[in-house]
């Protein structure tokens, strides 16, 4: 029914507008869901629209969103990165140790942690593009390797000793009252948008994900670009790990167990296709906020955490179902 109405509306639009509209529809769905949740929470929970709570959500979502932006790139190439949670933990502990044990200044510590992530990403990328491992397997391996390493270097206990100013990354507020984590989301998202839409790397990521052989036969150095995408994903996982470490002012070797699932869920809810060739930064951000708000709302409304899991699972089903439904319509119309 709804679909018929939609079709009859869209058929009256000029084709160019219609094409763009189709691109936007899956995000509209997720974005609409996001608005509904915001509206709902602000009505039922007096605590929701408070500065404290919003700040809390913003800094909570920061590391998930940053990591999800990296994974968006990977998923666009028809790959997957399961290792981001473990890589974030490894980066967090090593970054904190660089500051605490080696005495590096905070910016270098953050950079160091990010580079650790990039290194893990490079290994992922080479395993995928040179050794030819399936991305699922390559990054599944990294998931356990990075986790193991982070326990080894810390003897499985949290590491401390970063200067106090390290807290700013995950907890600071700028002069205008803007939380630094929120600023980070905006900057990373903008950078991600530019990379995806304005650079060779982004274009080739879509091309590789859409049709790898066509990309290769068009002279695109597929291996190099595939590797780069995993490096970016690793670096952003590392950076996300530093944000998370900053929030607790310590490196936690057991941070982010299962986080990759939230991250991938955010990307998929945002309209990216696991078959590659599709995905946007805006969609991923919407997905990340949607998940964060479901968690936040459950806390505010005192919903049992186990129910949160169920709600998020159902949201993933709905998002992907809607996406498939939309594609089937599209296919039927073009036949």
């Amino acid at each position, binding site marked *: 029914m709804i679909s018929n109405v939609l079709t009859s509306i869209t*058929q009256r639009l000029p084709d160019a507008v219609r094409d763009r509209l189709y691109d936007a529809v899956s995000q509209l769905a997720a974005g609409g869901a996001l608005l509904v949740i915001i509206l709902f929470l602000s009505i039922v929970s007096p605590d929701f629209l408070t500065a404290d709570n919003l700040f809390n959500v913003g800094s909570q979502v920061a590391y998930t969103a940053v990591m999800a932006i990296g994974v968006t790139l990977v998923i666009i190439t028809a790959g997957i990165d399961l290792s981001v949670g473990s890589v974030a933990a490894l980066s967090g502990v090593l970054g904190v140790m660089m500051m605490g044990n080696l005495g590096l200044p905070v910016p270098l510590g953050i950079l160091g942690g990010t580079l650790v992530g990039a290194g893990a990403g490079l290994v992922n990328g080479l395993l995928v593009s040179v050794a030819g491992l399936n991305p699922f397997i390559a990054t599944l391996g990294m998931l356990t390797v990075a986790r193991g390493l982070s326990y080894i270097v810390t003897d499985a206990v949290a590491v401390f000793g970063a200067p106090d100013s390290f807290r700013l990354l995950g907890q600071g507020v700028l002069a205008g009252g803007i939380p630094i984590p929120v600023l980070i989301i905006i900057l990373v998202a903008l950078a991600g948008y530019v990379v995806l839409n*304005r650079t060779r790397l982004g274009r080739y990521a879509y*091309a590789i994900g859409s049709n790898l052989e066509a*990309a290769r*036969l068009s002279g695109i150095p597929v291996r190099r670009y595939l590797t780069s995408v995993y490096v970016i994903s690793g670096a952003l996982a590392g950076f996300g790990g530093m944000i998370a470490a900053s929030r607790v002012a310590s490196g936690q070797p057991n941070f982010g167990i299962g986080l990759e699932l939230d991250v991938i869920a955010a990307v998929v809810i945002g309209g990216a296709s696991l078959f590659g060739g599709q995905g946007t930064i805006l969609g991923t951000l919407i997905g990340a906020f949607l998940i964060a708000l479901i968690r936040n709302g459950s806390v505010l409304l005192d919903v049992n955490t186990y129910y949160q899991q169920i709600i998020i699972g159902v949201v993933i089903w709905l998002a992907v179902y809607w996406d498939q439904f939309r594609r089937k319509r599209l296919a039927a119309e073009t*036949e």
Partner: protein
Amino acid sequence: MSSAETERAPEPVIRLRNISKEFPGVLAVDEVDLDILPGEVHVVAGENGAGKSTLMKLLSQVERPSAGEIELSGAPVEFHGPRHAQNLGVAMVYQEFALAPDLSVAENLFMGREPGRFGFVNRRAETSEAGELLERVGLDLSPTRPVAGLTVAEQQRVEIAKALAIEAKVMILDEPTATLTEREIEELFGVIRSLTDEGIAVLYISHRLDEIFRIADRVTVMRDGKVVDTVPAGELDENKLVRMMVGREITDLYPKHEVEIKDVVLRATGICRGNVLKDCSFEMREGEILGFAGLVGAGRTELARAVFGADRIESGSIELDGREVAVGTPQRAIEAGIGYLTEDRKGEGLALQLGVDKNITLANLPASFGFIDLGAERRVAERQRERLDIRTPSIRRAVRMLSGGNQQKVVVARWLETKARILFFDEPTRGVDVGAKAEIFQLIGGLAEEGRAIVLISSYLPELLNMCDRILVMREGSVSGEISRNEFSEERVIALATGAEEAS
């Protein structure tokens, strides 16, 4: 059909009365009447989007008609889905085969109808019945062997046997020869004939003209969802059929330009790759269209891919303008001015989800320091759209939504943007409408006229005989001969391609 014929004609197995199928916004099948007689090969021809496939889906009850009636042996048929159609004896043999690769041939043949009781499968009965079915379709293989490892042609035969297993009265074959070699096609036609001899009606969907004349008893031409006419095959010729399919006169299917042929621009010598290419050599000249003829699997595509650097070669050299170059990868070939339009447009040529513009610029993205110049990209795409007359409402439209002919033009546009002077066209008209074919040949002729050197690979001989200046014939990975235009004949090419006669 005259009334005298109608009286003599047997009762139709299937009769469609005023059948229509409407999809949102599209009338895919528009008040179609069609009679299928027992024991006939009835070809349904038409361009892409003419409604052939939808019509078949209505018959096999994959789709429910919006209006009209289907009668089977005189009795009206209710719509209950594909399974019901099968039970009534209407079997569909799909283009993409629906066999389970890890199960045995016999298990596939009886899937969902396993002989036996109480949930147990009587394997012995299954195997022996499978053996009989395989014999009827001319397949000499063990029913217990897994489907994985069968050739496409063999799998297709298994599909047909599957239709026999349900005692089909009508068998629908949708573009069955798309991926078959010439010899396999010959065998398939033999099997089809043996089916019709048993009284089974075969509905055959195709847009390959040569085949239509070889196999059809009657031809129904569809256009824009309507039946144009149903005609005995004997009363048709190529021109008439094309006119019916396209709806207008195509004066020249193969516009051949007169071009002065100049110097050798590319010389490939002694190209070897395993068993696939054995010591292959050829030359390409400026302004010349060189054809690669041969049976499927003779190494034509492989030779083109080797020169383009898409596959590694073991030995051999490539000279451009008299200088030896190391190609090795598509990237370097493109830099050297070589382009390759793959035979598998959707599988290897296009990023289907991406827009027309992005596909056009894929091999030569206007960018500096890694940043794309979006304005330049738009201008490039608009220019190519105009030049090649790519019919799309917007250059941002996903190429998936374009017709085959327009998709092919997008690929051509991509290679023109790389400034390629040497172009390999591998089956450029596959899946392209008759009308668009003439356009693509016009384009290829124009490119040669501009001084490009062109290789045209085609399995349809008339294309090569009409368009090429010279034809290189391949057989089993080797170059078996070369024929220049004034010596062209179908017989010579076939002789060289099959080895029936050594080059004299």
